[in-house]
């Protein structure tokens, strides 16, 4: 027998269209309703005008609908109560269902009846109606529909999350009582604002309804099909339930006082069908403004639709009234705010005693601002009525807070009332087995009924589990009950392996933190999918506030490393691990990991160390510290303004030379160490350097005339043919602010010029820098040249394209003096320090084998790909026709600086150019750095640069007819194709695919080559130079990185335009993927791996007439001004980056 369920397996189900629309078309009179008092009671028409309702159902079935909805939208006691008809509710539902079933049975193929349950007229979330009253009202309706024989219950046009949950519960309870189970469908109504009437977005709906285990979750009403796309997309990606969609016939319009729906059947059907195939809909139909004709227009298309196959991926989440929050935060952990807890917060407890509800809500809002993801809420206060307090507070709170709630109580009635008051998906905190399973079971019943996740503590009849084995054992038992028996999703089980204080010194708890950390690891490994939580601050209970911050922060840090997903924590007190003093950290970690030894007790050490320290986190009040400590700190924190007063004060009783050598350089050493350990970001290092520079400038006039605090000298230069100076300048900044004298010769320095300088200014070493691949070869040639001159001065090499193997192998073999590789400025500093300390030994060149680290080629597969007759790699296929450009020749563009930000690769900017890297920081600490430092920095620069005339973006681009000839491209004159404008040569891979850029162009016909050139203008380059000159290191560095990435962004923007014009833009990927060649074809720039020789820039600039936008070629074939870039664009689908 075909049931609704089997039909849904076979086809996309076609539902009916509007009921109200059809009824009102019949222009019901007062007489039809049965009197003035009953006018508008549409549900009553089932009884009074059954023939109308029968005709409407028939007309929809005749139009091809598989199922119709009963005329029971408002047929519940609460709504009917407005007409004095509450008592008729059950009967009207039975009648309406029976009538529709009767019509359905009169058709020979399977037809079904869906019981319509509307939202009613009162919003529970806004307190219009109580939970019990609403539940009872829906229960009557569900009873009637089931007794009338409906095939499914459809809770539709939902505007309120709270109402959905009540109605679903009523349906379940009615089915349980009648032992008759039918599917439960839910349809939400998303307004044009993008949310339900009460403000919930569709993700909040999905998260909240999902644990209730319904059968269908879809959308109806409010808008036409097109406006529903984004919400359907969300459901398509994440919902485990079938999706239904019953849109209105377009967005209603008001025409001359009449509501008019713009989509006629012919306009409506294709839109719904499109949505059905695009978003994997299982059920379609219509709502307001749709008619049997709309359904008839849909029928043939629906019959042809395939049953959708989706692979939804649902993140375990909690939800507030407004939004869903995933429990697995990236970076971990999810922070549960702990200040709305009468047990933990005195402030909250006092507000509760005063019944200052608004004050408590303010406290909740503060935590939201501080970055909490979830709010722990506990109103347990001895002597007060906890149920009433939960009711009063939540009634006010839920509509004012966007964070989901963790209901913190072990009292059954409190939990139940709180869950009734909370429309979203809550987390219940908590269950345990202290008194056996009975109580846990009662609470789990609530979790099932109200759709909540649960925190479970590792406590059983024996008490709190203290060892890792016990914790795991209880966790297994919790899992068996919660997941195994109650069927909660493992991701809704949040296990708390308990934290005990380390502050008591109690022998029993000395190793408790280690046990907890190890238990986290075991639980995550053994019970896949479950989540973990800790009340982290318990670990430091009893210690003074200053040490608590540090102990808590490190416990959190190690917890996350061991698998902690969530932490109950004061969000405002999250202390980044990098900000912790290393000695504090060592001591506290000894305490956490119980590293006691003979004569050393970390607890005593921590108590002593923090005994007189105030809990002021990172910004210790400067004036409270001794002046030398303040100076040290001023360097670490990069306080270039504040440090001057401290310098002045310190100069009163301290030797200026000593201040530099001991205090300031000592602090810079710490900066270097922190940078090396990945605990300090480059931008902060530069701020420290600026503070150092400012401090030294202030001290210098006080130095005795003859004194020299400089430790050594270095000559720095970027090698011949390379204009990149940022790396070299960073080395300059770090060395000169660490006591070395630096002569920075600038860019494009031929070795002869460098050596001339060396004669005049004898230095301890030469530092050579360069970014280009070609520069690595120049460096080696320079070393050869120095060797021929018989020099021995040590050389330090650095640059992006260099590798340690190359420097320590090839380069060392070229020169008898010492040759060192510096991966970053601080490695350069270390080399300089050991050089001046007298280590003049010349490291031996690494042999070929050891340089390569014993990397052996065992097999190099078959012969290289053969070349075609035309001399092209046969790996590239030429089976697609070349696109037609919209014009031939060259055009010029001017863009607004703000437009460039659109294509800015923020990831590359922040992580690579600006050097924000996570290093050894926890995910959460690094997220805080990104949020508090990197993002505001970008916003500031953007605001500054969009307004100021620093950038004058200009571009030229064009399309040229071209023909591949082996390793060359013949560029033809667009107006006279017999004439060659240029012959561009490219290198070819010697083996493997044997690729060459020319392979992506046809040899047998004319193809199209796009060329592009962008520049930010001369003013940008001037601005960078000025910042550097004026010692604004951090600004210079930030500006340079941003300008470089914006140049790239401009190239990306122009390339996107070219793809659009060539009609190959439909392969463009969304979002960040675009920056990783997420498009058809490729953009090749000279100096990069596929075409490393910069000489190629010449012909490109000529072809594009770059001079017209002020771009010229330098004698080293690079573009001038800086922040300009050119490229060749290949449209061929196989064109990607490669190296020759």
């Amino acid at each position: 027998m075909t049931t609704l369920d089997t039909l849904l397996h076979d086809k996309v189900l076609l539902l009916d269209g509007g009921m109200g629309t059809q009824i009102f078309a019949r222009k019901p009179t007062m007489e039809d309703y049965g009197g003035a008092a009953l006018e508008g009671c549409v549900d009553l028409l089932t009884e009074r005008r059954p023939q109308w309702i029968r005709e409407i159902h028939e007309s929809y079935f005749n139009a091809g609908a598989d199922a119709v909805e009963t005329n029971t939208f408002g047929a519940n006691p609460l709504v009917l109560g407005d007409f004095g008809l509450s008592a008729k509710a059950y009967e009207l539902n039975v009648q309406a269902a029976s009538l529709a079933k009767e019509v359905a049975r009169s058709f020979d193929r399977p037809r079904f009846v869906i019981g319509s349950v509307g939202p009613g007229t009162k919003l529970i979330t806004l307190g219009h109606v109580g939970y019990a009253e609403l539940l009872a009202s829906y229960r009557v309706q569900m009873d009637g529909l089931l007794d009338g024989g409906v095939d499914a219950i459809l809770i539709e046009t939902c505007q309120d999350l709270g109402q959905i949950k009540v109605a679903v519960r009523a349906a379940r309870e009615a089915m349980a009582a009648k032992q008759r189970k039918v599917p439960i469908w839910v349809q939400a109504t998303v307004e044009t604002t993008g949310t339900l009437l009460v403000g919930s977005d569709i993700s909040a709906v999905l998260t909240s309804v999902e644990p209730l285990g319904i059968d269908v979750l879809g959308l109806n009403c409010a808008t036409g099909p097109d406006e529903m796309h984004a919400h359907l997309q969300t459901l398509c990606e994440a919902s485990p339930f079938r999706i239904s969609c019953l849109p209105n016939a377009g967005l209603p319009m008001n025409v001359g006082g009449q509501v008019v729906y713009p989509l006629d059947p012919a306009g409506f059907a294709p839109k719904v069908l499109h949505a059905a195939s695009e978003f994997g809909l299982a059920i379609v139909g219509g709502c307001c403004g749709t008619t049997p004709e709309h359904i008839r227009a849909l029928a043939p298309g629906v019959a042809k639709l395939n049953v959708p196959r989706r692979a939804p991926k649902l993140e375990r989440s909690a939800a507030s009234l407004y939004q869903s929050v995933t429990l697995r935060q990236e970076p971990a952990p999810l922070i549960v705010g702990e200040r709305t807890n009468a047990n933990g917060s005195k402030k909250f407890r006092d507000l509760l005693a005063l019944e200052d509800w608004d004050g408590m809500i303010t406290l909740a809002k503060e935590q939201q601002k501080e970055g909490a993801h979830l709010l722990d809420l506990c109103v347990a206060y001895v002597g007060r009525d906890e149920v009433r307090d939960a009711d009063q507070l939540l009634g006010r709170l839920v509509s004012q807070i966007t964070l989901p709630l963790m209901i913190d109580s072990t009292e059954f009635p409190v939990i139940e009332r709180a869950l009734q008051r909370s429309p979203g998906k809550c987390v219940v905190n908590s269950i345990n087995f202290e008194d056996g399973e009975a109580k846990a079971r009662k609470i789990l019943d609530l979790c099932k009924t109200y759709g909540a996740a649960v925190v479970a503590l590792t406590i059983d009849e024996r008490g709190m589990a203290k060892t890792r084995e016990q914790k795991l054992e209880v966790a297994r038992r919790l899992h068996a009950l919660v997941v195994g028996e109650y069927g909660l999703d493992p991701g809704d089980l949040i296990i708390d392996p308990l934290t005990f204080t380390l502050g008591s010194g109690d022998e029993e708890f000395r190793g408790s933190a280690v046990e907890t950390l190890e238990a986290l690891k075991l639980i995550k490994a053994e019970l896949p999918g479950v989540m973990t939580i800790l009340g982290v601050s318990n670990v430091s209970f009893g210690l003074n506030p200053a040490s608590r911050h540090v102990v808590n922060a490190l416990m959190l840090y190690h917890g996350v490393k061991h698998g902690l997903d969530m932490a109950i924590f004061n969000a405002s007190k999250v202390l980044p691990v990098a900000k912790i003093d290393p000695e504090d950290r060592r001591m506290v970690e000894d305490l956490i990991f119980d590293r006691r030894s003979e004569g050393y007790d970390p607890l005593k050490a921590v108590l002593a160390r923090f005994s007189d320290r105030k809990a002021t986190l990172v910004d210790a009040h400067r004036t409270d510290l001794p002046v030398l400590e303040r100076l040290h700190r001023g360097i670490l924190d990069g306080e270039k303004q504040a440090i001057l007063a401290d310098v002045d004060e310190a100069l009163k009783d301290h030797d200026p030379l000593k201040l530099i050598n001991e205090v300031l350089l000592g602090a810079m050493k710490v900066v270097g160490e922190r940078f090396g350990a990945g605990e300090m970001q480059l931008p902060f290092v530069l701020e420290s350097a600026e503070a150092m520079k400012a401090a030294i400038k202030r001290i210098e006039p006080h130095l005795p005339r003859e004194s020299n605090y400089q430790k050594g000298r270095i000559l720095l230069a970027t090698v011949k043919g390379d204009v990149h100076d940022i790396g070299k300048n960073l080395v300059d900044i770090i060395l000169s602010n660490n006591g070395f004298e630096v002569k920075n010769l600038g860019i494009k320095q031929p070795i002869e010029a460098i050596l001339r300088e060396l004669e005049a200014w004898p230095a301890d070493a030469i530092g050579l820098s360069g970014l280009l691949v070609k520069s690595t070869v120049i460096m080696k040639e320079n070393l050869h040249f120095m060797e021929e001159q018989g020099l021995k001065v040590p050389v330090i090499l650095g640059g992006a394209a260099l590798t340690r193997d190359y420097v320590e192998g090839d380069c060392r073999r070229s020169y008898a003096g010492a040759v060192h590789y510096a991966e970053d400025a601080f490695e350069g500093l270390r080399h300089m320090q050991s050089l001046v300390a007298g280590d003049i030994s010349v490291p031996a060149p690494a042999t070929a084998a050891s340089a390569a680290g014993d990397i052996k080629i065992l097999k190099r597969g078959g012969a290289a790909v053969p070349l075609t007759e035309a001399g092209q790699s046969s790996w590239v296929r030429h089976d697609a026709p070349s696109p037609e450009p919209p014009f031939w020749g060259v055009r010029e563009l001017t863009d607004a600086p703000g437009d460039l930000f659109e294509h800015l690769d923020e990831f590359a900017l922040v992580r690579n150019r600006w050097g924000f890297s996570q290093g050894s920081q926890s995910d959460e600490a690094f997220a805080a750095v990104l949020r508090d430092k990197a993002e505001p920095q970008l916003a500031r620069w953007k605001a500054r640069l969009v307004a100021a005339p620093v950038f004058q973006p200009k571009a030229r681009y064009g399309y040229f007819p071209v023909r591949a000839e082996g390793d060359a491209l013949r560029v033809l004159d667009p107006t006279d194709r017999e004439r060659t404008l240029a012959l561009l040569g490219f290198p070819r891979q010697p083996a493997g695919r044997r690729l060459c850029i020319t392979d992506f162009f046809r040899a047998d016909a004319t193809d199209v080559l796009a060329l592009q050139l962008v520049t930010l203008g001369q003013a940008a380059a001037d601005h960078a130079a000025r910042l550097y000159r004026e010692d604004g290191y951090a600004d210079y560095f930030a500006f340079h990185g941003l300008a470089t990435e914006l140049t790239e962004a401009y190239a990306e923007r122009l390339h996107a335009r070219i793809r659009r014009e060539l009609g190959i833009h439909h392969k463009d990927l969304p979002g960040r993927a675009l920056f990783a060649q997420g498009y058809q074809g490729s953009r090749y720039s000279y100096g990069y791996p596929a075409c490393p020789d910069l000489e190629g820039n010449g012909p490109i600039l000529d072809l594009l007439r770059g001079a017209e936008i002020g771009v010229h070629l330098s004698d080293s074939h690079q573009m001038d001004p800086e922040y300009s870039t050119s490229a060749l664009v290949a449209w061929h689908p196989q064109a990607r980056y490669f190296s020759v």
Partner: protein
Amino acid sequence: MPVKVHFLLEDLLVEAPAGTSLQRIADAAGADITFGCRTGSCGTCRVRVAEGLHHCSDPSPEERDFLQGLDAPPDQRLACQVTVHGDVAIDYIGL
């Protein structure tokens, strides 16, 4: 303990000490993998680990963040960020 790295694109089989970075191996053997920034922020060296994903180091935070931004499947890695601790087979994507 030497491990074997098989670059599938050109059927190149290389032996290297366990714990060597894939970038060094690729550079030393001349494998057909293009590197860009070598710091895990440009994606030029994206590869698919066809075999032995569990022999690769866990993604650094940078790599994890980068790949997440692209919605890349878990078998895709950035060659510049991976060290190999057992036999692997590498397919160059270079997207």
